[in-house]
């Protein structure tokens, strides 16, 4: 039960020699996300490194790591081809058992375009903070609904091309800064974590507004993505998001309905998916629970 201090694993080659060294931005469940550069130091990019997981059986670990890196990269390339906004893929290495990587403890990586912006989660947390102080709750709520609407439309498009995300949460939806965005202020990464919520509600309002109303929604984190055109799979995808949203942003549950509304309006098949979602919900609630 002893707590240990967190020390990130060593990066695999060729990144050991990168100057300046990649900066750790976030530690997700499966991956470590670094900010570094691609070819030129002026060209920022994101490096997603999946170290091997010592807790699981090495065979299973290698299988999962490889599978996820490949399906993530493939899905992103496919999404982009279909005109959906995802970071561009710059390179991958998914053979953890080979060469230098094996000596470094396995794992694999993917390099992609850097998204200047913040996650929908951070944005909604900032909205929650501001809501209390700004005295213009309804306006903010409306702006959140606006964002939710855009998210719903995009998710419907994604499902229409047969992509099931597999891990929809507000951490996996990024909001890219608009061109007129004052630089660095709402960026959760670049300035450590000094974000909008440091300043008072009145000052942050226009910044939040800009992200909520004009920010471009970029989907990320496709490691668990699968391809399917089944209504059931689409409905479960939405259910996962609904639950993650409800538990993370209970204060904004009403606004979430806008996601489903927009989803339903975006394609002909979408209504059937929403109908199916009702079944999935019921199943979740009705399944027997014996202690």
């Amino acid at each position: 039960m002893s707590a240990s201090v967190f020390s990130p694993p060593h990066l695999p080659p060729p990144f050991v020699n990168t100057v300046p060294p990649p900066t750790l931005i976030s530690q997700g469940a499966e991956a470590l996300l670094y900010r570094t550069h691609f070819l030129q130091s002026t060209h920022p990019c994101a490096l997603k490194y999946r170290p091997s997981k010592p807790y699981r059986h090495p065979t299973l670990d290698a299988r999962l790591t490889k599978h996820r890196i490949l399906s993530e990269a493939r899905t992103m390339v496919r999404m982009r081809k279909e005109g959906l906004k995802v970071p561009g893929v710059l390179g991958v290495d998914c053979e953890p058992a080979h060469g230098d990587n094996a000596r470094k403890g396995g794992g694999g990586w993917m390099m992609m375009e850097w998204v200047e912006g913040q996650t929908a989660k951070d944005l909604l947390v900032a909205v929650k903070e501001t809501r209390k102080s700004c005295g213009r709750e309804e306006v903010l709520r409306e702006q959140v609904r606006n964002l939710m609407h855009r998210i719903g439309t995009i998710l419907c498009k994604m499902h229409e091309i047969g992509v099931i995300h597999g891990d929809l949460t507000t951490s996996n939806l990024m909001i890219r800064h608009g061109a007129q965005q004052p630089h660095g202020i709402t960026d959760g990464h670049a300035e450590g974590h000094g974000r909008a919520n440091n300043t008072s509600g009145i000052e942050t309002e226009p910044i939040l507004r800009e992200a909520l109303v004009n920010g471009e929604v970029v989907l990320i984190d496709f490691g668990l993505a699968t391809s399917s055109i089944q209504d059931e799979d689409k409905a479960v995808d939405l259910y996962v998001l609904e639950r993650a949203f409800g538990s993370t942003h209970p204060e904004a549950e009403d606004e979430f309905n806008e996601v489903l509304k927009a989803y339903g309006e975006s394609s002909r098949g979408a209504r059937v998916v929403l109908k199916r979602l009702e079944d999935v919900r019921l199943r979740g609630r009705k399944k027997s629970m014996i202690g």
Partner: protein
Amino acid sequence: MIALGLEGSANKLGVGLILHPPKGGPAQILANIRHTFISPPGEGFLPKDTAKHHRAWVVRLVKQAMKEANVSVDDVNCICYTKGPGMGAPLQSVAVAARMLSLLWGKELVGVNHCVGHIEMGREITGAQNPVVLYVSGGNTQVIAYASQRYRIFGEALDIAVGNCLDRFARTLNISNDPAPGYNIEQMAKKGKNLLDLPYAVKGMDCSFSGILATVDSLAAKLEQDTTGCRDETTGEIITHEDLCFSLQETVFAMLVEITERAMAHVGSSQVLIVGGVGCNERLQEMMGMMASARGGSVFATDERFCIDNGIMIAHAGLLAYRTGFTTSLEESTCTQRFRTDEVLVKWRD
């Protein structure tokens, strides 16, 4: 203050007595006893038989607990019972016992959510402050974190519970249900070494087990038919029942650790608490420990006395609620098979 707790949502009947010292400080366990209804190998426990078991044992267990704790009826402040979730008939038989004691002794009733009972007892025993909770048992698989007065469910099994998956596989192999099917699978898994390819079904913070169960069941059937023995594709060794148990555990536990880690990353916590019967499994605890330490965190788990369904956790969670003024009137003292963890208003935490 002292509370009596009665638990009987599945095949375990538990009676516990807990004391919360008036000036604060750790709770004192005065008695924690249990009697389990064990069905023959290859069979699950039926609600009717389980309820009968609970009715036959409840008075004896309450008497024994009072004696062990050395308390009199006057010392008891309230009677806590499991309101749900669980199996209807066993829940009802215990609720009837609770009502009877309440009327007989003139004490208030407190209906308790079984899952909240597990969480609060786990926190009390381990001292984990605000952990992500993995609740894994025969009927539940949930990843939970606390936020604004509720235990919120971040992830769960979309079909059958992990414990149910293990129990059912034990039935397939005709393994004994004594002391618990999951325990016997764990012992067999220790002797397995070939990892077979089973489906791995994680969806974000949710997961599913029925596909895995179907696959491992059909592998077992194949071993049964093939008298010359099936061989592992990579090692060429003969596949054993032990290998099946090993593969099943390695796969489903990896899934559980993964969804827990995802929730930890999502809420930004580095503590994890494992509760529920499957939480006794040492391999699961070990895997969770490795994950947590790689994140610079720690894992908290309890032993069989508190992991497996028990009366003390009902007494403890009930007393926490009672101290905030919560009681359940006789008219409301029903039970319910479905009672979600996030339905409970957790008034005793900030």
